[in-house]
């Protein structure tokens, strides 16, 4: 764990120095964290959950979001992005499969909630498992034929899949075509929370879901499955030779990633009353992928920080209105040039990225 990989210092660029300094400080924090006894860690976990619960209060709202209603913002985009990013992180960060159509799973989850909720009048809690299951199955349907492809082909196929799902939704009259579906039922009241127009109860519901998903993702990461994913990500051929059934595990990554995407879709659709195909554009897939990469692909806290920043910064600086997406595009390019491993990189990933895979002479990008 402690093999900090340092590249030889190349330039006197102060920015480079600052980056290294930040990296070292983070390493120290992480070493402390790795050595901390269990009760210290649990205290931090509990404090974090406590923080999440008091986050919607006016105290935070005053400086976090002077322009927009803060609890609404916390639910969507912040909470939704975090959940989607955690799901995509399993596919991209752990298994190393580049998915540019993740929004399709989110859409399928949302459409399940909307369709079953309006047509059969089922309860949110009954639809939840069905929505997750249906989305997971769609993950298999997408993955089974395409996961034999190499990385960048896979990226384009998933992008195509995302577009196909959106266009089908747009062209099918049975599911409302481009008008979408309206009058989606809210979840039933429980624990004294009334699920109506107020975003707060939905936010608490989402916090619960996020905590559950994080525990799930964490356990998975540290299991045999997680190790298999790492092996596949680092060298698929070597993993196969070592007896890892790579195809099966890649499919599993798609399956689980899709499940989390679908889950997010169901929860989101239960709040918004109406959904439309236009809610699921390609740019959303790109944004979530950017969140994962910005935060540090493969590292759960990093990914969550990345998603938070990507969701929150544009809303915080509404004054810049139109220029937000422009700045977002430029930030991606600059980020990749300066710190391709992300803000809080997974250490393992960092080591991989800084391995000399390309030299000045080599025209190949990456391996």
């Amino acid at each position, binding site marked *: 764990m402690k093999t900090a990989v340092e590249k030889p210092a190349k330039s006197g660029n102060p920015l480079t120095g600052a980056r290294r300094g930040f990296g070292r400080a983070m390493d120290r924090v992480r070493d402390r964290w790795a050595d901390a006894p269990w009760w210290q860690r649990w205290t931090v976990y509990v404090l974090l959950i406590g923080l999440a619960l008091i986050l919607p209060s006016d105290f935070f709202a005053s400086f976090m979001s002077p322009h927009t209603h803060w609890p609404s913002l916390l639910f969507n985009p912040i909470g939704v992005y975090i959940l989607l990013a955690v799901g995509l992180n399993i596919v991209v960060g752990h298994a190393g499969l580049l998915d540019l159509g993740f929004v399709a799973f989110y859409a399928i989850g949302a459409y399940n909630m909307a369709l079953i909720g309006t047509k059969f009048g089922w309860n949110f809690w009954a639809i939840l498992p069905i929505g997750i299951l249906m989305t997971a199955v769609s993950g298999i349907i997408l993955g089974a*034929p395409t996961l*034999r492809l190499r990385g960048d082909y896979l990226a384009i196929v998933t992008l195509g899949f995302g577009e196909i799902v959106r266009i089908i939704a747009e062209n099918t009259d049975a599911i409302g075509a481009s008008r979408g579906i309206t009058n989606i039922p809210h979840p039933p009241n429980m624990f004294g929370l009334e699920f109506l127009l107020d975003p707060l109860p939905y936010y608490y519901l989402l916090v619960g879901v996020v905590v559950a998903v994080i525990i799930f993702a964490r356990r998975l990461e540290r299991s045999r499955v997680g190790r298999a994913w790492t092996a596949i990500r680092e060298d698929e051929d070597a993993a196969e030779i070592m007896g890892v059934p790579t195809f099966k595990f890649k499919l599993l990554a798609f399956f689980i990633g899709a499940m989390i995407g679908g889950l997010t879709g169901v929860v989101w659709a239960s709040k918004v009353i109406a959904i439309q195909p236009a809610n699921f554009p390609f740019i959303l897939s790109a944004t979530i992928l950017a969140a994962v990469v910005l935060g540090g692909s493969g590292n759960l806290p990093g990914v969550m920080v990345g998603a938070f920043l990507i969701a929150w910064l544009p809303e915080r600086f509404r004054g810049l209105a139109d220029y937000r997406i422009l700045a977002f*595009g430029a930030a991606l*390019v600059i980020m*990749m040039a300066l710190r391709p491993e992300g803000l809080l990189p997974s250490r393992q990933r960092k080591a991989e990225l800084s391995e000399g*895979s390309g030299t000045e002479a080599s*025209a190949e*990008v990456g391996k």
Partner: protein
Amino acid sequence: MLNDFIDQFGPSTVGGLAAGAIYALIALGYTMVYGVLRLINFAHSEIFMIGTFSGLAVIMTLGVSEPQSGIALIGLLLLLSVVAMVGSGAAAVALEQIAYRPLRKKGSSRLAALISAIGASIFLQELFAIVVIPHLYDHPRGRDNIGTQQLLDKEPLFTLGNTDVRPDHLIVIVASIAMMIALDFFVNRSRIGRGIRATAQNPETAVLMGINIDRIVRITFFVGGCMAGIAGLLYLLQFEETRYNIGFVLGIKAFTAAVLGGIGNLRGALLGGLALGLIENWGAIFFGSAWKDVIAFTVLVVILMFRPTGILGESLQVARA
């Protein structure tokens, strides 16, 4: 159903070939860059978009107000092609310099390069939507379609059965095949072309043989950009409108065409482009034109499943180009 198909077979074949010719020209840029760098130049669709806007700028500056014919038309088209090629080519070179070269020098992962490409693509689209179009094109609503003056008479040239062949269709198809032949000569016969093929085959050895890779990469991006510029111009000629995100769907389809023909393979790009245009248009007779995009993407998925190397195989690197 079958009667419909027979009825519309002629017109959709012509439409399909014209659409496919444009896909093929864009596909060349993807295929060349992929051949040399193993990189999907995701922002290539924006290079195409810049081509359409370069053409538009010339039309607006010259104040063309009616369809042209004869010498005036030929002169205008030549001027437009030069400007569109230079505009798109320069944009492609700048893109390489800013978004890809720093990553290449660091030997970053392909994922990083792809994210950088997506970032560049978003940046260029937004740049046009909120800065360039409202200010340089006097079009305050930058996200709307922007129409242009009709450049040539679109009366059918001749009719085959029930199929009208319009001059713009003919120009698009002929021009793209001519560009394709020129490019094929350039890559296979010229010194620089040999450098491109060598780099595609094995960059390390190419360097040892005295090839300046940076220069080759720059030229590859420039040539790919030129082709996208021509494609942009032809698109403008045919549909007489453009918008800031015009490249997105066309770009994905052009990439599909490149994969269909065999990525890295120049002749494959032509074949893939025309085939995709035809499949899409013939499919639209059965399913309706709203499903065109779904048909194209389904073709992509099916091709990748059964023959990921495409119809002609990946071959810029086997030195045949």
